[in-house]
Every structure is written in C-alpha cells, then in structure tokens.
C-alpha cells in the first residue's frame, strides 16, 4: 500500500510539472504518448503471490539486435514503418539485460546458456547441466557432477512439464530441460565413445518421460530416436546404431507419439499420457517453408491446454530454435519469419494465461554477429536497402544510400559468414568486392545479407540479450543480470510463501 501511495503521489507530481511547464510540445502525439507511458508504468504493481505456472520462451540467437530486426519486420508486415511496432513481449512490465557468457566462453553456445536458465549455474561451452569443474567430454567426471534441473524441481512439486522446439528436440536448448551430458552433440548413441556410460540425449528424454518428469515434448529430430535400419514416416533413415527404437519404447510406456500436422491435431490431451511429437527427421522446417507440421504457436497452445489441466501447475519451455540457424546462414528473411512465429507463440500464451498465477519469461540464449547500417530513412524495408531520409517528410525517399564504392547496401549486415564479400580465388587467397544489389534482390526469401569475414557458418556473439517478464515475481528482473539469475527468479516464484 505504501508503494501504491508513493506511485500515486509521483503521478500527480509529474502531471503537475508538465502542466505547470506549459511546454509548446505538449500537444505533440509524441509528448502525449510518452507521458501516457509513464502514467501506465506508475500503475504497475508487483505480483507477489506464488507462481502456479512458469513459461520460459527462448528464441535461439535472438539478442537485442535480432529482436530489433524482428520488431521492424513484424511492424512492416502489418503495414507500418516498423520501428514503432510493439511485440507481445515488449508490453511486459519488467525487462533486464542479460549477460550470456559461459564459464569458459566469452562467446557462448546454446548448451551452457540453456543450462544457466534450467539449472541456475553457468557451465562450459558444449556441456549441458554438468558442473563446470568437469572437462568437456569427460564421461566419468560428468557422471558425478550433474545438476538438478528446474523441470525436476517442478515435478517434485506435482507440476507437469513440457518442452517445445522448432529445432531437434535433442538440440541443446530443449535438451537442458531434461538431460545431462558432457557433450551436446551426443544426441543419439553414435558419437558416444566406447567405455562411456553416459546415455545419449534422445534416450534420456524417453527415460524422463518414463520417470514422469516430461509430459510433453514437441519438436524435430526423429532420426535420433530410430535405428539406422528403420525409415521414418517421411522415408528418412534413423541414426541409432544400438538397435533401439525409442519411438516404440515411448509407445510401450504409454506415450502418444505423433509425426505430422494431422495426427498432432487429433491428439487427445489431458488424459495423463505423455506426448511425444517428432515432426521432422532433423530440425522442423523454417516458418517460411512450413507445410504439414504445426506452427510454434500451435504447439504452444496445445501444450498449455494439456499441461494446464494439472491443478498443481506446470513448467513449459518453448524454443524458437531456428532464428539462430537462419542467422548462421546470414539469411535474414528466414530469421525474421521465424522470429515473427516466435512472437505469435508468445501472444498465444499471453492470451491463454493469467498474469496473477503464470510467470511468463521471454528471452534469448545469445546474440549473433548481426549489425545494422545507417543512416536509413524510416520505413526502409528491414530486409532491403538502406534508403535515404526525407528531410521534408517522414518516410524514406525510395532512393538508396550509396557506400564509397558507389553501391547500395542493406539495412542488415553480418560481421562474418558464408556471404562474405571476400571469396576464395584460384590461388587460395581471399579477395573480392561488393556485388551490385537491387531492392528486389535483397528482399528475396533466399538472399543472404553481405558479411565481412569469410566463415563457413556465421557465429554467435557474446553481446547481451534482453529478458522480458510478466506475472508473479517478474519484477525481480531488472538492471543487468547474469543469465543464471533467470532460474533463480523461476525458483523463487514457484516457492514463494
């Protein structure tokens, strides 16, 4: 109550100051919306009841820069200039910057970052839910150094647990919900060295389903669950060389297993049977290419419906796994369309849940080597060329800015990647110049934005990401935090007295 009174007093003070100042800009729409934002923020009150449900949204590789690009893309798709668009998570009252470095990496990969969020401690690049006292790949030491995950804590509280990803369900970010591994690449049995007793990630998922920890798992990655002698529903061979058919094992354990949009739609939810959805042999399709498999929003909706039947609540991690992959390809089009699909999934969760009992956290695991050119006029297509500002108006002039080489350039660029302007010559040296470019070329679905340093795959960066939150104890997010703090907020929220 004391906080509320203080807020009201502050509101009166600010409003009074503005009126008293009689500023000439006070009638501007910018001025009014700025004041309205402050008034709205003064109304924000922390929710300090125990969280029944926690939903952790992670878009892989969606740092502050990538999130900015997705905002503009979504806004322009909606017919606006883009930069004033508000994504669903950007309406949340609490935001912080997150430091994503790992125990041994200034630049993290997705394994230790997912571990930080699911176990509350940072780890080494390449390992998932294994303490950083262990060397990567050390099976024996790793067996003694596993963490206890938030999913297991939630299960002990009687909650249900789900994990959803558009990447392989055995990929690092989803795997951190249910697995412990000294090597993130051990998704099936084939790469585990002889004499190592650690189970591969796919078999750990089935174990966790049998143990009652995982209730729903939806994503790609069928091949890691099938023997190499068996082909899947789309004619692609499994990868396992130990003869195990984990899909049959899941069915034998009572799980419903689905492979495409039709059987996914026909699922019977809420009957206490675990659900395993494996919609591709490897990663699910990019949103721009999607056919015959559910969207991230549809998987999120189905998961919330099913998990929400548990009166004790649930923990759900939802990953947009391929924002990262498209960034790795320097293919902004698919990065942006998958980013919009991520926002659609968040919107669905916002619509389906009550902020008084459900903590929703939206973040990324790391950023990429993405960057933005200037000086672009407003409304420059985020996929296209950086157009000149119109000094007499608002929207750009439709005339591209030119670099010193006389050629136009796109808004988005990458510091490194396959699209380097330097290519290998016949003598093994690297050289080149920027190719000519039109707006039509740059906005094509398959265009790769120009990059500088030649690399076989564009890299992550160690730059901060954002975290947005609403619901119980979301106000604990603020300032600049370490990534493992996300776990501690979730843990506090579900245990608060």
């Amino acid at each position, binding site marked *: 109550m004391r906080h509320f009174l203080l807020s009201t007093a502050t509101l009166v003070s600010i409003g009074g100051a503005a009126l008293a100042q009689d500023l000439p800009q006070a009638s501007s729409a910018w001025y009014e919306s700025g004041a309205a934002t402050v008034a709205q923020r003064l109304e924000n009150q922390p929710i300090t009841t125990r969280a029944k449900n926690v939903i952790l949204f992670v878009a892989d590789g969606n740092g502050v820069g990538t999130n900015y690009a997705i905002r503009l893309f979504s806004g322009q798709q909606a017919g606006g200039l883009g930069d004033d668009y508000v994504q669903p998570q950007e309406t949340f009252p609490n935001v912080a910057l997150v430091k994503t470095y790992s125990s041994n990496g200034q630049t993290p990969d997705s394994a230790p970052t997912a571990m930080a969020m699911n176990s509350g401690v940072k780890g080494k690049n390449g390992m998932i839910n294994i303490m950083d006292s262990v060397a990567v790949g050390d099976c024996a030491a790793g067996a003694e150094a596993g963490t206890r995950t938030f999913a297991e804590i939630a299960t002990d509280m009687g909650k249900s647990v789900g994990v959803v990803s558009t990447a392989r369900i055995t990929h690092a970010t989803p795997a951190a919900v249910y697995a412990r591994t000294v090597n993130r690449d051990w998704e099936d049995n084939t790469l585990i060295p002889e004499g190592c007793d650690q189970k591969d990630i796919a078999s750990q998922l089935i174990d966790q389903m049998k143990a009652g920890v995982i209730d729903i798992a939806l994503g790609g990655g069928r091949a890691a669950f099938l023997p190499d002698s068996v082909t899947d529903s789309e004619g692609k061979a499994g990868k396992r060389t130990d003869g195990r058919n984990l899909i049959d094992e899941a069915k034998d354990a009572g799980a419903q297993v689905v492979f495409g949009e039709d059987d996914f739609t026909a699922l019977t939810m809420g009957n206490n049977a675990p659900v395993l959805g494996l919609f591709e042999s490897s990663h699910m*399709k990019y949103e721009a*290419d999607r056919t015959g498999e559910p969207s991230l929003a549809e998987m999120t909706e189905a998961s919330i419906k099913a998990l929400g039947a548990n009166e004790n609540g649930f923990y759900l991690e939802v990953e947009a796994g391929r924002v990262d992959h498209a960034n790795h390809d320097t293919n902004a089009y698919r990065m942006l369309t998958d980013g919009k699909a991520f926002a659609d999934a968040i919107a669905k969760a916002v619509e389906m849940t009550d902020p008084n009992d459900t903590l929703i956290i939206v973040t990324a695991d790391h950023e990429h080597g993405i960057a933005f050119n200037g000086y672009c006029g407003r409304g420059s297509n985020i996929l296209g060329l950086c157009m000149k500002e119109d000094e007499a108006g608002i929207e750009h002039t439709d005339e591209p800015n030119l670099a010193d080489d006389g050629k136009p350039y796109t808004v988005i660029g990458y510091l490194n990647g396959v*699209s*380097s302007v330097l*290519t*290998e010559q016949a003598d093994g040296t690297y050289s080149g110049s920027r190719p000519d470019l039109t707006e039509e070329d740059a906005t*094509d679905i398959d265009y*790769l934005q120009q990059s500088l340093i030649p690399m076989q795959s564009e890299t992550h960066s160690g730059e901060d990401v954002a975290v947005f939150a609403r619901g119980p104890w979301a106000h604990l997010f603020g300032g600049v935090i370490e990534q493992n703090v996300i776990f501690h907020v979730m843990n506090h929220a579900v245990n608060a007295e």
Partner: protein
Amino acid sequence: MILPAALLLGHALPSAAAGEDAIRLRDLYNKDLSFSDAALEAEGKRLTVWGYMAPPLKANSEFFVLTNRPMAVCPFCEPGMPWPDDILAVYAKRIVEVIPFNVPIEVRGVLELGDAVDAELGFYSKVRLVDATFRRV
C-alpha cells in the same frame, strides 16, 4: 526445407544469365517437395539452374551436388549432417573443376526427374542435370 534456389549471395544474379530456359532451384519443387509444373515441363530439356557447388564427395569426378545455399561441409563426410531436401545432382560433361562452396554458379544441362541411385557413389537423387557444363556467375 524448401527449395530455395540459387541463393542470392550478397548480390544479384546477372540478368544475362536469365535466358528463357533458366530456372531457379527452388522453382523445381512445390512447397511439399513434389515436382513443380515448371520442372515437369522442363523434363528432358536443356536448361540453366543457379546454385552453389557443395564440396565434391569424390575427387576427379564428373559428379557434384548443387545446393540452394552455400554448404561448407560435405554431409557425407560429417557424421550426422543430413543433406537438405533442396539439392540437385549434377553430372558434368568433364571432370569437375572445384569452385568454392559460396561462389554462385550457373549450371547448364538436361533435366532428369525421378528417383535414381548413383552406381559408383550410391548417391540417391530425385532430380538431376546431366551432360552439364557450369561456370561462375
């Protein structure tokens, strides 16, 4: 994965390459990976397709795989890396002179549709360009 075509790698493909019989790799398929009308109409005809040369599976061969996006790593050489769905098997007239994986090329040859397995490499393909020549764009 869809049939994205000759990925426009930081630049436009020159219009001079876009003759009447030129086709983009993505134009060979529908979204569900069935053959497009354009592919069915071009079957048996000589045409030009844009893309990238994946690192060859075998040295001194007439065979290579055209990819829609630059593909640095040979999927057969790296355990666990599946080929994307949107590839085109190319049988060249001559021994292939390797071009870096991220340099756009145009390939001209006769379009063959339908399942086939390479007798020597065991490589399965749904669509091929045979009797082909190629060059940097």
